[in-house]
């Protein structure tokens, strides 16, 4: 068949053009089939893919170990720190009112940075600029606790990150990264989480990969962890070089994932296997 086509195409430029067109159409079809986003009606929280025991852990606040981090965060919220000797509460008062819905809107555009900033980096911005304190380390108990405490205030609220002319270029960059094959096994995020969600990978269900529960208590980690930790974890699973903590690529991905999960309800601190 290919030989025939080739033989023919050598003889007639018109047929050669037609062959190229057919090939282009086939290619376009496979590419679009590969890069299909999950339709909004089929978007499901990763919670739905959990076993009954893990769900029970998340459903009960006295069984969810992520709530221990929330207790740490609440204490930090009220603790004065830095040269300014101010606590978060001195400016923002009661987090239960002032932080309601905030985590559902992050990463958000930062005019000073000219790019999106995630919740962890925003907390550290407050620390350095307002409290005149040292920034908290990524994945430290303190930063995870504060993030979890703030994220808890958005529980049950739909994800609502801004998709406007300022954030759009970064959402597009995140989507591009999500669909790009990378690493030694040449895989993209989309191949699992767009194309094969609901199927099994080594006995475990492949979830859609929504970020609506971060920071999560991951049983494998035996601790709370941020979305960036999870992304780096997926990257090394793909045998790719993970981006360092705080890298703009990570934040672009976080922003794209949040826009992809728009409308899903926040459940932080979630429990994941």
């Amino acid at each position, binding site marked *: 068949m290919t030989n025939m086509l080739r033989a023919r195409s050598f003889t007639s430029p018109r047929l050669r053009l037609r062959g190229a067109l057919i090939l282009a159409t086939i290619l376009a079809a496979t590419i679009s089939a590969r890069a299909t986003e999950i339709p909004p009606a089929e978007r499901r929280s990763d919670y739905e893919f959990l076993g009954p025991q893990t769900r029970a852990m998340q459903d009960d606040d*006295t*069984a969810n170990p992520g709530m*221990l981090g929330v*207790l740490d965060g609440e204490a930090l919220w009220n603790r004065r720190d830095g040269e300014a000797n101010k606590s978060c509460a001195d400016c923002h008062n009661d987090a239960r009112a002032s932080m309601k819905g905030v985590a559902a809107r992050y990463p958000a555009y930062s005019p000073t940075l000219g790019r999106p900033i995630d919740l962890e980096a925003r907390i550290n911005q407050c620390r350095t600029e307002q409290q005149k304190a040292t920034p908290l380390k990524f994945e430290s108990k303190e930063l995870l606790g504060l993030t979890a405490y703030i994220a808890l205030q958005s529980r049950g609220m739909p994800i609502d990150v801004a998709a406007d002319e300022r954030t759009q270029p970064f959402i597009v960059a995140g989507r591009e990264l999500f669909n790009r094959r990378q690493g030694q096994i040449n895989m993209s995020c989309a191949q699992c989480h767009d194309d094969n969600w609901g199927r099994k990978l080594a006995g475990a269900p492949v979830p859609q990969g929504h970020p609506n529960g971060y920071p999560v208590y991951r049983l494998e980690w035996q601790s709370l962890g941020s979305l960036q930790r999870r992304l780096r974890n997926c990257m090394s699973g793909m045998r790719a070089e993970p981006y360092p903590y705080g890298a703009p690529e990570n934040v672009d991905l976080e922003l794209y994932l949040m826009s992809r999960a728009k409308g899903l309800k926040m459940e932080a601190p979630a429990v994941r296997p």
Partner: protein
Amino acid sequence: MTARALINVPAKARRGEIIEIKTLIAHPMETGFRVGLNGALIARDIITTFRATYNGEEIFRADFSPAIAANPFLTFFTVATETGTIELHWEGDNGFAAAESAPITVE
């Protein structure tokens, strides 16, 4: 930071009712078998004993081992006999000690 614990004891119960008590405590439960980045063993740091008393009388006790995961979650059942206090104690390596208590009203 002090050890954080979350406990769930029913505030009210009928006399003779079987009640469930749930406890969760923040602890790394370092096994003592892991090797650190410098190649040396990380010293064991676990909770060794858990004890629960109901108005001073011991109703439950558990010995913990290195195989128990971080932030141990433990639940057990008891019979609601009288109004009073349920006290929970955790003890472990490096002088670790934590205690929580909750009142219970029995009608």
